[in-house]
């Protein structure tokens, strides 16, 4: 692994970036050695990349369940623990309980969705990372690791495809 080098190829548009990914595959670079960084959400099929796994929907579901049980606790358990008899109403009336359970379920789902982005994306992370500011100008950066002996041939191939630049990737403070 010591002879591996991480390079950054910068593209103006999606089409050459997709061609570059295909070319890298052809030159023996596997998907897990490639990372795409872009200023807009470019979906995996556009670049011929494998589907990205996300836990956010599962975390949302888990949060919704947790919220549901908190709502159940507030509307069912607390009146039993601290009974307040309101004239003419049962101790645990169902219609008002639905309101409390609904709000807590939605709150649980939305908070866990939000936290899910943080967990899955490892936010916040202020360590130096491979990045260049041109990415937020709409450029598409293809980061990839390749054996040093293949470096020159890969650079040449990517420039023919339309890479604006192919340079060693450097971690920098964001």
């Amino acid at each position: 692994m010591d002879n591996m080098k991480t390079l950054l190829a910068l593209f103006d548009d999606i089409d050459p970036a997709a061609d570059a990914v295909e070319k890298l595959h052809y030159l023996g670079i596997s998907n897990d050695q490639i990372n795409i960084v872009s200023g807009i959400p470019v979906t995996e099929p556009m670049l011929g990349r494998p589907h990205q796994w996300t836990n956010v929907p599962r975390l949302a579901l888990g949060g919704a369940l947790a919220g549901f049980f908190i709502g159940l606790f507030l509307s069912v358990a607390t009146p039993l623990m601290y009974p307040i008899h309101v004239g003419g109403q049962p101790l645990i009336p169902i219609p008002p309980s639905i309101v409390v359970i609904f709000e807590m379920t939605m709150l649980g789902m939305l908070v866990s969705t939000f936290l899910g982005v943080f967990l899955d994306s490892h936010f916040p992370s202020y360590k130096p990372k491979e990045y260049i500011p041109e990415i937020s100008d709409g450029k598409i950066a293809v980061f990839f690791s390749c054996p040093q002996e293949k470096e020159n041939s890969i650079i040449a191939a990517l420039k023919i495809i339309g890479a604006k630049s192919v340079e060693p990737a450097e971690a920098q403070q964001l």
Partner: protein
Amino acid sequence: MPEMDNSTTKTHNEFSEHLMFDPLPRGVMNDMVMESMQTTSWKFWVIACFLGIIVLVCLFGAWGYLINEGMGVAGVNRPAYWGIFLVNTVFWIGISHAGTFVSALLRVFKAEFRRPFTRAAELMTTFGLVQAGLSIFMHMGRVWLFYFLAPYPNERGLWPNFHSPLSWDFLAINTYLLASTMYLFLPLIPDLAMARDRSKGWRKIFYRTLALGFRGTEGEWTHLRSAMNIFAFAILPVMFSVHTIVSWDFAAAMRPGWSSTIFGPYFVIGALQSGIAAVAMVLVVVRATMKNMKYFIRPEVFDSMGKLMLIISMSWAYFFFNDYLVQWYNGDKFTDILLHFHESGPLGWMWFMMLIFNVAIPWATLWNKKIRRNPAILFTVGFLINIAMYIERYVIVPISLTINRMPFTWRMYKPGVEVWLSLGTLAFFILLYMLASRIVPLVPVWEVQEGQMAHSLRKVGKATVPAVSELE
């Protein structure tokens, strides 16, 4: 072939009035948004200082006076225990509805005109809810005992009754405040990263901290997109529930004029009526006062907002009439007296003004495309709608409370210190928005670029028509 090229060019020019068909390089759009945030004239600071003084005097000063002197300096008294405090609460929650409605509903239905102004609308939600929350605390009187609302084991062995409509309010408003703030923040992350890449000094530290280390990797976009889709769908029922629950504070009581099964949707549509009009007003001001905003906020946006305002105005009229008719038809003596009091009582002019500003003026103007696309007229119509919606809440709260089933208690409500507090919340809302416009990129540039990438022109027979690709 040259002839075909000419016709295509001509068609391109025809469509170039639309932001989605008039793309600029992303770097240029980024610079425009950064410049709009960082270019501040002396007039801005004069207005900000003026608003700051109003906030200090009318909001915090008057509130301090209220706390020091007690609720006697406010106009609330039997029978109108709920006065302008609650009018303000309902009004500001209504304003806050538009941000989520515009952003989430239009995102769900993939309405493309939303792209440049979702954030400007979402900001209104958060700042509107701040004012609503403050108004509730003002209404509380002994605000230092606010923790009585919180569930905690105490020496009296009492917990809040979560089945009370006021507890629903507490849960719903807090859920909505948290949800809308998170929904504001998530799509903001890529723009904060963009601002981080272009800033120096304190701004660099500020944006770097808030951007959380976002780079735009495939994984980060996937998680973000997934979360935003969940939020867009899930926040809508929360939005509807909030104002419905606010309406139940009224409708669950057996009072003339309040006990109505249609109050839920009537309140929701009223919230959208004032909120959408307020979004239109904000967009006009942002476009007129902030640099480069004429590129992003175009007459097409006002046109679409005008149509929305017209549809919502018609819906409001329908729900108003529905509520009115059922109450009028039920033959209850005190409801009948109340309805006559609305129309011909000492504040009957308010009731008529509400209908003229909410229905007659929008219907008379917004059907016309030229009027809808005129920022000054749209602003004026939006302003009148908001006056009407404030009056509507005034009619529902203190005026309706004047008439009850105990005639010996009837007494007109005369507001006291709460008038100043209302002015304070309005100034605080505008001040927060102005300050936010200096540090928050008001245009979601990545969403605009994504939209521009998705739009293209397509030949159908002899005609060239706009087409939108599904990029997600």
